[in-house]
């Protein structure tokens, strides 16, 4: 959104626009009853992420050997990692939501990691994508809470052992605190990915601008920063999955 007024014109015009990488362009324009439902580069990379995850898991698990091959053990590692996370945070009855958490984690991880490939597009650096994912989690968790506890789920917003006059103040506070969840979930992922990729592009511009003699310092920084970005890409997917588990736990067992 901020792409037009900043960027481009810094440091004498030799710098490329660091926001250019986030631009959406339509590959196949589709007009769906007045709605712009085009197949964009964002959709393309989501599809690629989906294919990568599905392809990796299907191919690596095809052998089903007792002693896993390398690829199979990576797939098993991912499975165990998320299964333990769900078991630790939600408990054994939370395991019925394991497929959802696992899918979410693998998709976000694949999107983040594919974003680290040069010339690719980072799907998770757009807030609407991360907010969509967070909204799915938020609405799903709330629905689960209502299904499990009925109207009693509303007690989640009423802290126990508080005198009645205070409740008028505390219930809105609890409600705001609850509504913060999807926002913080999406903003964290989006801000981390976008800030990291912008930073990489800006320093890439420095390398070009400083030329062969001075460009080595930003280049060295970029190499280190790329490593950090890979870590962040994993960490953000992990945090998203952990927070999903924690919210699920809150909805299922109803205590903070």
């Amino acid at each position, binding site marked *: 959104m901020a792409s037009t007024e900043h960027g481009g014109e810094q440091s004498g015009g030799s710098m490329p626009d660091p926001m250019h990488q986030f631009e959406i362009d339509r590959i196949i324009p589709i007009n769906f009853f007045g709605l712009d439902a085009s197949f964009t580069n964002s959709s393309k990379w989501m599809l690629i992420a989906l294919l990568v995850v599905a392809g990796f898991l299907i191919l690596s698990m095809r052998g089903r050997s007792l002693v896993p091959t390398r*690829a199979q053990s990576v797939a098993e590692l991912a499975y165990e990692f998320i299964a333990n996370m769900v078991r*630790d945070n939600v408990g054994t009855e939370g395991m019925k939501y394991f497929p959802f958490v696992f899918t979410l984690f693998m998709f976000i991880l694949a999107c983040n990691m594919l974003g680290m490939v040069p010339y690719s597009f980072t799907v998770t650096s757009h807030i609407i994508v991360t907010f969509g994912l967070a909204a799915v989690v938020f609405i799903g968790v709330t629905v689960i809470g209502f299904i499990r506890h009925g109207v009693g789920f509303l007690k989640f917003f009423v802290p126990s052992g508080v005198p009645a006059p205070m409740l008028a103040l505390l219930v809105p*506070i609890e409600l*705001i605190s609850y509504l913060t969840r999807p926002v*913080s979930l999406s*903003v964290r992922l989006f801000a981390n990915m976008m800030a990291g990729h912008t930073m990489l592009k800006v320093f890439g511009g420095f390398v070009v601008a400083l030329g062969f003699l001075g460009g080595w310092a930003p280049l060295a920084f970029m190499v280190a920063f790329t490593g950090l970005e890979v870590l962040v890409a994993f960490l953000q997917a992990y*945090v998203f999955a952990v927070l999903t588990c924690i919210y699920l736990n809150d909805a299922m067992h109803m*205590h903070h």
Partner: protein
Amino acid sequence: MTKSAGDKGKRPGELSSEDRTHLKRRLSGLGERLGKVRSRDRPASDENQRGRGIGYALRMSLDMVLAVVVGGAIGWFLDRWLGTAPVLLLLFGVLGVAAGFLNVARTYREMAAEAREASKGHTAKSVPFDDDED
């Protein structure tokens, strides 16, 4: 990626007895080595805890700020809907600050419990959430 042709000859479930003993020996050797590596890495659990702590800290600051933003946004929209100029914006902004502190207090309690658990010797997080406090 896929398995080699030699592996494919024997079915996954069928192991000859010599294979089995060989496997068992390898497994126990692996267990021993894992134990060694784990004991060597024990001090790293402190490092691990520190990393998680930084994650908590970043989460707390964002949660605090976003609670105010969400509260303010709710107030702003209600104001526009009801036409009560800045009253609800301010009210919900203040409530948002309180919600932010609530978020932070909750995360802090969780974090402190985890730190206490970790300083007791074994790594935290292996216990289910239900067991700590309340």
